[in-house]
């Protein structure tokens, strides 16, 4: 590894951090999200991920496209939140769908949307992830 590589990598990392800081969440919220994702992954051996940003129309199609870009789509659960469009999409892969049924997803989506409508993005996502992971453990 050359010095140039190290520098550019460090710059990338800093840019990433800056981007996260200008993202929708504060540092404590980021930590809670990280913890929630880690717990959900560990306890279910599914891969949970959360996308927060604009979604192109049709929203569902875009969410599914993002889901297909994950390394293991079959075992992945993607939660897409678009605050400006006030849209929420949960996409589950083939394997994940057997563990987390659509009905469970809808239930989690309802509770997340309730939090979002109160202006609590991070809280909604954290509780939604916990709910999804809970269903995956049982299912």
């Amino acid at each position, binding site marked *: 590894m050359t010095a140039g590589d190290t520098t550019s990598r460090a710059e990338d990392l800093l840019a990433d951090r800056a981007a996260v800081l200008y993202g929708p969440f504060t540092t404590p919220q980021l930590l809670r999200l990280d913890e929630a994702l880690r717990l959900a992954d560990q306890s279910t051996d599914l891969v949970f991920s959360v996308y927060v*940003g604009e979604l192109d129309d049709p929203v569902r199609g875009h969410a599914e496209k993002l889901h297909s870009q994950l390394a293991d789509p079959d075992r992945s659960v993607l939660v897409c939140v678009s605050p400006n469009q006030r849209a929420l*999409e949960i996409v589950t892969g083939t394997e994940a769908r057997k563990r987390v049924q659509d009905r469970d997803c809808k239930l989690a989506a309802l509770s997340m949307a309730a939090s979002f409508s109160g202006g609590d993005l991070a809280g909604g996502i954290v509780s939604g992830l916990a709910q999804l992971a809970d269903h995956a453990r049982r299912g």
Partner: protein
Amino acid sequence: MGRPPPRAVGGVTCSATVNAVSVLETVLFFVAIPAAVVALVFGLVYMGGTRPGKRYRPGRPFEFTPVWFLSAPERLSGASGVDGHAALTGPRHAELPAGTAGEKNSAGDTGVAAQGDLGGASDRW
């Protein structure tokens, strides 16, 4: 036992026990000190810098950089520059897919359940 006669200092009459206070001192005491305290509080509040679009309120535009969180960023296929230290940075802003309009037409336009066996749910608020 009579009261001590009032003295005159610099044209201001004062008693034997209380010194005369000039207008400048009065202004300093009642204006400058409160102003300094207010400035200190403002300084402390804005010291950390202001973030644009601090708080999400439904129905109002919310400016932010899109983020994609994974507990293990290396599981995003095509994510570049992912290595050991990425895992230490907590929720990492993974590489966002550069979805183009032309690419979107292939799968996106069919709408719900394009890949058939995908599940999930949608909601709005």
